[in-house]
């Protein structure tokens, strides 16, 4: 059927039209529940919905780009902090994922006793749903009641108020995030490494190459496409990874770990004060634009969609 692609449009239409019928429900879902809500969010971000101070939530007006203008120019600029945090969160996490994943995969990719046992045990964090384990981690990081400080004092280290200082709050987030994700990265890299032909390494050994040289000249080039792929996907995912931040730091202390998606949620549905829907919508839109740009760059610069388009 592949040769169909060379046929004329009309011929293909006549032969392949049932596809449209199969796609009707999905197209409706995509338009009504994806495209329309996105457009609606853009519209709300151009109004004073919830921020106009008119008393009634239903009386709101179109105010153009005023929200965006204020966000960029106001003194205590929240937006710049959010951009910075979102990138720290995504780039920092991905760097750690790659580092830990590559390291452990390299170690596991040797003939060692108990390899399967190690691999199976390491995969266990994956078995429990992330929402549940993040909530437990949130409890573990607490100053007075958390098990982590209790363990630290057990070995003579004075307790750390993890969530009250920006640096330690980030540390808590990154450690939790690595725990959540390293099994996936390790398994992916290990699977890729095992697909590298063994004779390449043997030939290199004969030529007198050491372990490091083999890693740099054989393993890394082979892993490159995988590293780029999972790195970019991981970046996109983490950029909007809501639960670790929402459940562990709630963006605090202050705004120091707040990202777009958690700030937007807080503005719209947070406790206290009236819901600032227009600001929430604006942060969603900015977040959306970042994701769109990154996605387009990903599609253009990698052959990630090769399998999907064939």
């Amino acid at each position, binding site marked *: 059927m592949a040769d169909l*692609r060379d046929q004329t449009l009309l011929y293909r239409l006549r032969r392949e039209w049932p596809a449209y019928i199969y796609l009707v429900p999905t197209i409706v879902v995509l338009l009504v529940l994806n495209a329309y809500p996105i457009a*609606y969010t853009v519209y709300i971000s151009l109004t004073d919905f919830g921020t106009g101070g008119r008393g009634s939530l239903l009386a709101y007006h179109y105010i153009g780009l005023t929200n965006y203008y204020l966000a960029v120019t106001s003194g205590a600029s929240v937006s710049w902090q959010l951009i910075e945090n979102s990138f720290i969160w995504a780039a920092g996490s991905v760097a750690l994922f790659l580092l830990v994943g590559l390291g452990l995969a390299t*170690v596991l990719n040797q003939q060692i006793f108990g390899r399967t046992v190690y691999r199976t045990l390491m995969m266990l964090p994956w078995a*429990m749903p992330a929402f549940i384990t993040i909530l437990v981690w949130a409890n573990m990081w*607490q100053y007075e*009641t958390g098990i982590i400080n209790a363990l630290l004092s057990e070995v003579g280290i004075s307790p750390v108020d993890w969530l009250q200082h920006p640096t330690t709050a980030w540390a808590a987030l990154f450690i939790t995030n690595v725990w959540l994700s390293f099994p996936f990265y390790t398994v992916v890299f290990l699977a890729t490494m095992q697909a590298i032909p063994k004779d390449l390494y043997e030939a290199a050994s004969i030529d007198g190459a050491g372990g490091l040289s083999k890693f740099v000249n054989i393993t890394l080039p082979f892993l490159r496409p995988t590293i780029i792929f999972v790195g970019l996907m991981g970046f996109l995912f983490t950029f909007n990874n809501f639960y670790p931040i929402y459940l562990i730091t709630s963006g605090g202390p202050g705004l120091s770990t707040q990202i777009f998606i958690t700030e937007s949620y807080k503005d719209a549905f947070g406790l206290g004060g009236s819901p600032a829907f227009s600001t929430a919508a604006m942060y969603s839109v900015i977040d959306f634009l970042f994701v769109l740009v990154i996605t387009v760059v990903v599609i253009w610069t990698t052959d990630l*969609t090769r399998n*999907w388009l064939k």
Partner: protein
Amino acid sequence: MRRRRGRRAIRIAKKVATHAILIAACLFALFPIYFIIITSFSTLPIAAITAHVLVPSPSHLTLASYHTILYSLSPSFTSLLTNSLIFAGSAAAIGLGLAAFTGFALSKFQFPGRRTFVYFILIISLFPGFIMILPFYLMFAKVGLIDSYIGLIIPYSAGAVVFSGILVKNYMDSIPDDIEEAALMDGMGRTQAFFRVLLPLCLPVLGLAAFLAFIGPYTDYALANVFLTADPTKWTLALGLYNIANTDTGEQNYGLVTAFAILMSLPIVAFYMAFQRYIIGGLTLGAVRG
């Protein structure tokens, strides 16, 4: 001679280092899980828990936390579980049905506009579901779908369609066209061939997609928290767990949090254990191939 002994020492040191790294990684991976299990069987205050976690004492092992969760929660655990199953089950079923048709159309037809459509759902699939919460809330509040079952099932199903559709499509791509052609030769129509021949072959990927489509709503807090405000009888497990674990009050009852976490994870963990090879394989396949 001396040189050879030096080499051997290096080899042993390497082995020791390797195992040290792997043991450290396993401890890191396992500690929170171990902590959850041990703590769920105790009712000790935090000060006493550390010692108990390090050296569990049998005299402190109790099922009291489980008893409290199962019999004295309000809304009851059974009610939370039933609601979670209703939401996640319907979303997985509806989402999967749509995804099967989508995958079929995109994989086995060369219709005009196919490329554009694939790009479209690809871009949609990369967008975070969380930014949909606000527009959904405002739209659904207008038509009175807040605090209703339907109101939450709709966005959950929509979330499942796109990702599952791509999974099914990729899997169907790997099924040779000859199989469908043979069915057509036997006098079946394309729809018939899809239901009778292709779909049964896709069962493994449909299982994986159903599992993923189920987990999303099952562990969703952000959307449920906004949509189910006034009516606790419709609350889900995720909302129940959040309320028990809420760190704002400063009085965590570790026993209750962890016992709830275990009960809520149990179905997922059981499924994961049973099909582990399969789930990991299915999810990493795209990445490894990438």
